[in-house]
Each structure stands twice: as C-alpha cells, then as structure tokens.
C-alpha cells in the first residue's frame, strides 16, 4: 500500500472500526475552522451580525435609557463601531458580550450628556411594552398566562424606572444578557462586591413591585 493512501484505510486494515467510530473519525478529519476564525467571519458579515444580535442589543440599550428612538440610534452606532473596529476583537468573550460592552459605553456617553442638558424630553418616546405583550411566543398561548406575563413584565419595568443608571445597567447585564458577576465587574471596571450591591438594590426594587415581602 502506497504512502498516499488515506490513513483511514490503513487504520481500517489494521483493526476493524464500527460504523459509529468511522463517522466520528470522518467528523474529526473534516476541516473545522478555529473559534477565532469563525468569529472573525461572523464579524465580517455585517448583515448577519445585525440580524443575529440587534434585538438583544436594542433591548439592552432601550431599557437602560428608557427611550426607544434614541435606543435605535445608539444601537445603530453600536453596530457601526463594532464593524469598523472588528479587528480589535480579541475573542476573549462572546460576540454578544463584546457588542454589549460597546453599547454600554455609548449608553454611558448618552447618560453623561443627558445630565448636562437643561431640557430633558423625559419619556418622549418611552417604551411601550403593553403592545409588545401581544407578540409573545406561541408557547405562551394561554390567555391567563399572557396576562400574568404582561403584568409581571410591567412590574419589573416599573421597578427599573426607579433604579439608578448603574443599578439598571447591571440588572440588565445580569438578568437580560445573562452575564456572570466576574464578567460584569470586568466590563464595568468595578469591584465585584459593588456589582453585588447594585444587584441587591435592584432586586429589592423589583420585589417591592412584584408584591413580595418588603
């Protein structure tokens, strides 16, 4: 048998392999791009990037600042920044976390700007989740369940409105974006105990709205 023969054939001649093992072997030998390479390709395709991550980034921004129109602008800026700076992505976190970090910086810039504005168009384009409740996934089909979900959602949203910007952002990072404590602390450049304190205050506010003990 010559040297150019497929190694699977050689192995097959030496010892018989089961069909399952053969499939596993084939899968191993198939070219699989490295994680960083796959992410790089993902970032290069702006349309796919936007289609995949925009709803989550828009939610994070919208509920951080409480202004739907402004959230759209910031989300758009976020994706422009991410696409233009995709070479800087090191792959040490997920794409969603990286995009959230970019969005977070833009939200903070906006909050700083708002602080110095004499006129504040408070709730000019406030988020209306009442309408959104009718777009719940089909598995929430029971009318009672829909009403409950709607009410609970409004209670949490009401609680968020009473939080400080930091508390609100950290709550969203932990419970909407499902980032862990270390990741949040690293992204915010904040001690982990401070992150916990903000989360405790946020949850206390949520509990007060939900109707738990207080």
């Amino acid at each position, binding site marked *: 048998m010559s040297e150019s023969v497929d190694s699977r054939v050689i192995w097959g001649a030496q010892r018989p392999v089961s069909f399952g093992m053969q499939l596993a072997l084939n899968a191993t030998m198939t070219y699989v791009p490295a994680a960083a390479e796959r992410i790089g390709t993902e970032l290069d395709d*702006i*349309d796919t990037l*936007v*289609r995949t991550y*925009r*709803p*989550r980034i*828009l*939610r994070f921004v*919208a*509920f951080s600042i409480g202004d*739907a*129109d*402004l959230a*759209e*602008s910031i*989300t*758009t800026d976020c*994706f*422009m920044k991410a*696409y233009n700076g995709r070479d800087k992505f090191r792959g040490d976190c997920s794409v969603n976390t990286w995009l959230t970090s970019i969005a977070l910086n833009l939200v903070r810039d906006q909050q700083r700007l708002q602080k110095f504005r004499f006129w504040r*168009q408070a709730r*000019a*384009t406030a*988020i209306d*989740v009442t*309408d*959104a*409740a009718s*777009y*719940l*996934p089909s598995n*929430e089909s029971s009318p009672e369940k829909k009403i*409950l*979900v*709607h009410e*609970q*959602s409004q*209670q*949490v*949203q009401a609680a968020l409105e009473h939080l400080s910007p930091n508390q609100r952002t950290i709550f969203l990072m*932990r*419970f*909407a974006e499902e980032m*862990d*404590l270390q990741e949040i602390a690293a992204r915010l450049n904040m001690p982990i105990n401070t992150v*916990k304190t903000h*989360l*405790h205050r946020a*949850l*206390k506010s*949520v*509990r007060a709205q*939900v109707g*738990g*003990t*207080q």
Partner: protein
Amino acid sequence: MSTKTNFPGHLSDEQIDDYLIGDLGGDAADHLEGCLECMARVQQMDSAISSFKTVSLAWSERRSATMPLRTSEPARWSGRRVWSYAGSSAVAAALVIGLLVPVMRHENRSDAASVKEQPVMMAASGAVSSTLPGEEQIRQDNQMLRDIDQALATGSETPAALGLQTTSSPARSHTQSAAFQD
C-alpha cells in the same frame, strides 16, 4: 452573603437575592433544595424576571424588524436627531455665509477701486487715447493724416523742391487718407 433573616427558619430576602444573582452557597443552598416555601419565593422573583425578559425581547425583536438592516445613514434620520442635524447644518451654513460675504465684498471693492485707478495709471503712462471710443480715435487719426498731407503739400521740402521725381500724383495720397474714413 448576607446572614440577615426575615423568616425564622427560612432564607432571608437577601439570601434569595444571592441565589438569583448566583452567589448563594453553603448551608443556605442546602436549605433551599429542601424547602418548598423558600423555593416558591425564589420562583416568584424568577418568574417576574423571566416574564420581563420574554416581553422585552419580543418588543425589541419587533422593533428591530422595522429598522433597516444596513446600519447606514438612513437609520440616523429618525426622531429628534433630525432636528439636531438640521441645527448643525444651519449653524454650518451661517458660518460659511458669514465668512464668504466679507471676502466677496472685499473683492468687489477691489474691482471698483482698480477701475477707478486705471485712467490715472494710463494717463501717467501716456496712453490716454486708449480710453477714447473707436470713432473718435479714427477721427483724430484722419485729422492727423490730413495735417501731414497739408504740411507736405504746402511746405518747401516737397520732393519736387528737393529735386526728386515722384511716381504718383499728389491726389493719390488724398485717396489713401480717405480710405481711413471707411
């Protein structure tokens, strides 16, 4: 982890929150596994947060679907940003006009001044006739030629007086000078 307890024999609110945050350990975690009451309190909070996540994501998915896919300029032209861009453009236009008007005025003034100064300069260089109209120029030239012819005809220094022979009649020079009038 907080040790404060609101419910004797059960987890405190802070401990419930620790669990939700992902920071509950030790005896409290063991208690939660076997306590239905504490688990119900956890689920009450968990359910509210899950509902918020579901509804807010449904909202943002719907909203995102109405936005243009390409994150280019059209998306920026929405809401109050239009007014901020319009304001910026107006300020920029005012600045450009403010800068251009003095420059143009200065140029116009320079042109007018050069027109006024030109005759003086021409007079100084002895080229006054260039500013006169064309017919006047022809009239003066003809007059000059007639004066020359007259001087030649009446003067003592005629070709005949000098002993020179002429090949053409004196009338010819008159014909030549008349041609200038055409």
